[in-house]
């Protein structure tokens, strides 16, 4: 909120002089326990990795191809999520219509659908014999088992993440700034571009990061819908899955690469969002 800066205590200062935080001490202890629960398993993996073989495993042709494919498809999927998800979040957060609750619940479904079933559903829809298969083949488009299919599968499972984070951010931001902007003569599209989106940029960004992460880790739906063709549809998680059949150590080593990429993306995103708004 504007104009009451003195109450917004942290004053952008970090460190011990940062003013009022007001968290009870016991909370930090519980939080540390929670963090340990996630960090210990990661440490356990790191400990188990055969570090002498690591470079060789990670730089094998198939690993590199899989990593490249994963990064490009996840980026594409994230873009699709932003393009399709932002309007959905806006409609869910800012307008009221009968059946909205149901729509919201349905949009969340890919979260709960086991990914393999999601893949089957996509196959039933976009596959050659699927709902839209006929239409698509008439148009000369063949999606299944192509890189496009990977992107679609990733978008399908990642979309709810973007919609949810963004809807939450929109709801907490409220609509009052938009109202003011409208009375200042800004058309709805201008309001969207110059007020709404900048205001919820942190929410949009964290939604995008979540989507990217989910797309990066996506496995079941991709395997079913897009198959596992090296360089075309075999993303890093699929490579890990296949490696596990023959060489479990290699699989674990590759997982670490996935983890490293994800940490990098998340950290970078938070860095840039920190400097952008707020």
């Amino acid at each position, binding site marked *: 909120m504007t104009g009451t800066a003195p109450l917004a205590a942290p004053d952008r200062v970090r460190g011990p002089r940062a003013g009022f935080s007001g968290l009870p001490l016991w909370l930090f202890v519980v939080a540390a326990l929670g963090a340990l629960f996630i960090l210990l398993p990661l440490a356990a993996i790191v400990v188990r990795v055969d570090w002498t073989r690591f470079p060789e495993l990670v730089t094998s042709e198939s690993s590199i191809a899989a990593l490249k494919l994963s990064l490009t498809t996840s980026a594409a999927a994230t873009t699709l999520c932003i393009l399709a998800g932002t309007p959905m979040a806006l409609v869910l957060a800012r307008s009221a219509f009968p059946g909205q609750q149901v729509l919201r619940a349905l949009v969340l479904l890919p979260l709960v659908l086991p990914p*393999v079933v999601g893949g*089957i559903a996509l*196959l*039933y829809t976009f*596959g*050659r*014999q*699927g709902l839209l*298969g006929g239409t698509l083949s008439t148009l000369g488009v*063949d999606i*299944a*088992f192509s890189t496009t299919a990977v992107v679609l599968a990733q978008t399908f499972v990642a979309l709810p993440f973007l919609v949810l984070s963004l809807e939450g951010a929109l709801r907490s931001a409220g609509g009052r700034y938009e109202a003011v902007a409208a009375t200042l003569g800004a058309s709805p599209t201008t309001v969207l571009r110059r007020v709404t989106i900048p205001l919820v940029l942190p929410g949009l960004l964290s939604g995008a990061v979540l989507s990217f992460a989910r797309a990066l880790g996506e496995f079941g739906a991709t*395997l*079913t819908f897009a*198959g*596992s*063709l*090296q360089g*075309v*549809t075999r993303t890093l998680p699929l490579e890990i*899955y*296949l490696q*596990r*059949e*023959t*060489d*479990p150590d290699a699989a674990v080593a590759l997982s670490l690469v996935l983890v490293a990429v994800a940490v990098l993306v998340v950290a970078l995103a938070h860095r840039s969002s920190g400097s952008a708004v707020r």
Partner: protein
Amino acid sequence: GGGADPAGGDGETITVFAAASLRGVFESLAEDYEARNPGSEVVLNFAGSSDLATQIEAGAPADVFASADAPTMERLAEAGLIDGEPGEFARNRLTIAVPPGNPAGVEGFTDLAGVRLVACAPQVPCGAAATRIQEITGVRLSPVSEESSVTEVLGKVISGEADAGLVYVTDALAAAGKVEAVSIPEAAEVPNSYLIGAVAPGAPEGAQAFIDTVTGSTGQTLLKDAGFQPPADRP
């Protein structure tokens, strides 16, 4: 079969859908095939057999299907998706995998009743085989977990979580050093069949050529190295 490996069509792309456990063998085979048929390309798609079957049912662009069990292949054949009669090209059989040092002291199938055992669920081929062996030996097992794939069984043995697991010979061989194998003589009576066939309709000429490579001497040698047994008609 046997003799010189046949040549396929030139400049063709053959898409092969193969069970995940065949990855190592089939990647070598594909290289070999491409080397001998310049200009042609083999695209490999690996997943669980039933995943692959679902994909083919949904119209996936497969030319060759290699399944790790007979029922899945029959499912496709009945649906008219396999060109002609699919052929068996390898067999596999169960063995007991134990963590290094065999901490629970498992010496044979009968010892499995008293230890923390992990097996496959009866719904999947490796579980079905385990059930048959129980019938033959009369030993009743109560696994702490009935997994949906051999990989999961093996993973739990490697991590030391289970005292023993029922896996295929090829799996135990691939994980040599991380697990020890204790053989089950009765397992020879309930082998697991690997079948291969060209996908109908419209498989290119090269499809049959690739199948012949698998069933031919090159394929059989590679399969043998990986621990597979030869098919029934070829002792």
